[in-house]
């Protein structure tokens, strides 16, 4: 009956296909062996101009697939920093090679190995959390210094006990984060809501197929319990069902929630806001750094986002000179092609500048091998007098502890008239 399972009767003999493939495969493996040095450099790399000795920075993130927006943001942000530093013509010159991982742990490890063949000395990445956990295990084994702009799970750095004191991975000493950790954000959000008395009844909508979202949700809940916040509705969605939110919104509405906490990325948030508007539900919305980017979605009616609150390390509309310059460069045709940078881009930009500062402090040179660079950088990053001020540190000096976490304060922002305003003001 079925055409699919009827007779299999290939016109061309199977063997010819196999032999052809074998030929291709063999050619591929040979190419795979020999392309170690030259292949990668044809990619998105840009060599330093001033001197011959450049430090090779690798970057990994999804530049294709559903998460491509985050990978592209990091790639552009890091590239801007590298180009700026090289243009200054100082002693330290960088070369960036950014590889795609499609937001997949396997591809990410492949990309890492590819970058090792290229001669990578420092890794900026990876962008998304699950691949980052896999790659950080590899860098840890290789003693390769890794700083991730956005891999926010505690499993990335390891060694962090959860609320019950259970540990899932030991500390990876070579891995540092530029972003807040997920538990950090969840707890900070709960504290903020409690301190400011923003709500009496809270609803949470989170993505229960996503590491980032679930991580924030879990820490938010445990902190909310401690603080005595009343959470009346907890609903979830998955990437496969991120279209219709009527049920989740109805649940929140019927439970009488006056604030909805959204520890998710901004793409589903834009859908949630639109659908809530259609059903006439207007609670307060509270997001985390994943909400940043909402205002830049092309075609999105920003009036729906009016009054949304979020904790974020970076706002593209900030008035300070550094941010303005960065945003302008990012929008140029060479990088974002008109897109507005989000916090991923800014975190990546900061990663490269933090690296330069640390390299200067530690006196690292391009001829050192990855392992000795790593030892020197770890020592610098964790030393008491090393601090870094960048786009995402709210104008204050951020430091790193030997847990790999960054100490910086998220800025509370509220959307008013289509722009971010500080919440406290």
């Amino acid at each position, binding site marked *: *009956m079925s*055409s*699919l399972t*009827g*007779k*299999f*009767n*290939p*016109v061309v003999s199977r063997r010819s296909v196999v032999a052809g493939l074998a030929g291709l495969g063999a050619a591929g493996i040979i190419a795979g062996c020999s392309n170690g040095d030259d292949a990668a450099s044809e990619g998105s790399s840009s060599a330093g101009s001033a001197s011959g000795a450049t430090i090779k920075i690798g970057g990994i993130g999804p*530049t*294709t*697939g*559903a998460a*491509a*927006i985050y*990978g*592209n943001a990091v790639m552009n942000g890091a590239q801007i920093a590298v180009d700026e530093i090289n243009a200054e013509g100082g002693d330290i010159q960088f070369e960036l090679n950014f590889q795609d991982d499609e937001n997949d742990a396997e591809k990410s490890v492949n990309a890492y190995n590819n970058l090792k063949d290229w001669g990578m000395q420092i890794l900026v990445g990876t962008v998304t959390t699950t691949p980052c956990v896999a790659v950080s295990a590899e860098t840890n084994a290789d003693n390769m210094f890794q700083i991730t702009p956005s891999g926010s799970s505690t499993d990335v750095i390891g060694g962090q006990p959860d609320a019950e004191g259970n540990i899932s991975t030991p500390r990876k000493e070579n891995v540092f984060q530029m972003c807040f950790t997920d538990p950090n954000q969840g707890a900070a959000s709960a504290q903020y809501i409690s301190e400011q008395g923003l709500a009496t009844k809270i609803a949470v909508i989170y993505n*229960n197929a996503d590491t980032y979202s679930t991580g924030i949700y879990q820490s938010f809940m445990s902190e909310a319990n401690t603080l005595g916040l009343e959470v009346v509705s907890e*609903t*979830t*969605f*998955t*990437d*496969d*069902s991120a*279209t*219709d939110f*009527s*049920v*989740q919104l*109805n*649940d929140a509405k*019927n439970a009488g929630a006056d604030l909805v906490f959204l520890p998710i990325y901004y*793409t*589903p948030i*834009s*859908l949630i806001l*639109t659908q809530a508007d*259609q*059903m*006439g539900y207007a609670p307060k919305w509270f997001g985390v750094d994943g909400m940043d980017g909402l205002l*830049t*979605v*092309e*075609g*999105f*009616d920003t009036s729906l986002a009016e009054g949304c609150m979020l904790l974020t390390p970076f706002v593209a509309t900030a008035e300070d000179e550094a941010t303005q310059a960065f945003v302008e460069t990012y929008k140029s045709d060479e990088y974002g*092609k008109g*897109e507005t940078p989000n916090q991923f881009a800014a975190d990546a930009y900061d990663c490269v500048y933090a690296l330069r500062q640390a390299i200067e402090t530690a006196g690292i040179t391009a001829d050192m091998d990855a392992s000795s660079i790593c030892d020197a950088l770890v020592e610098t990053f964790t030393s008491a007098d090393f601090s870094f001020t960048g786009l995402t540190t709210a104008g204050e000096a951020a430091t790193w502890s030997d847990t790999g976490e960054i100490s910086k304060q998220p800025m509370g922002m509220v959307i008013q008239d289509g722009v971010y305003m500080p919440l406290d003001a």
Partner: protein
Amino acid sequence: MEILANIINGASLGSVYAIIALGYTMVYGIAKMLNFAHGDVIMVGAYVCFCAVSYLGLPALAGVLLSVVACTVLGIVVERLAYKPLRNAPSLNVLITAIGVSYFLQNAALLIMGSDPKSFSSIISLPALQLFDGKLTISATAVITILACVVIMVALTMFTGKTKMGKAMRACSEDRDAAQLMGINVNSTISMVFAIGSGLAAIAGVLMCSAYPTLMPTTGSMPGIKAFTAAVLGGIGSIPGAALGGILLGIIEILARAYISTQLADAVVFAVLIVMLLIRPAGLLGKPVNEKV
């Protein structure tokens, strides 16, 4: 009242699945292939409409027409280049080719349109319906989606039942060789089916993005799979079956989320599907095929 609201929301979601499933089922019924690239044609349709309205400043209706035309052409071109050479090849080869086309469309869209999501402003600007003193709100998009689904289903049923082309399609579906012997041009009939299926995909894309306004290169893939499920549920090859299967799937999905668990909703939907198929192995409206020895 709440359950009614949920059912209407489900029917609206389901109607989107249904329109996609109609395209699936047409292509399957006549060309006997699972066109896994169908979901990505939806995405192309939505992007074309988005560009026409946002960048060219065309009125919404012109945008829809343009996207239908673009997808129809795309459907014919893809059929000609990728599927036609495989007319006599094993059907799994065609399936893999369709997957290749799906990857191609997604990655081409990524390169052309970029990775950032676009928010699709609804082409429907009518006010929502208020029933029972405002206790029940039905968005205009939902009403139009459901209506469109029913109209398309009826039109397709009449087309395949009454017109000459439709009859030719049915003949090709029954027995391709015999149809050829009767003087039917099988190749052009199959091209026609792809044209219709892809045109429907464009409409589905526009309606889906009007109801759920996020547009990314991967937007079409999951609805595509759900619609495939719906088509099988209704009995693949059956036009009313695809519509029924789609709407039922949407309602089950929303009800499972509302009354069982949001966390396990996907599992519940697929479990219901399995149970239904075990009770009626050829789908709800599918014809059980008796095998001859």
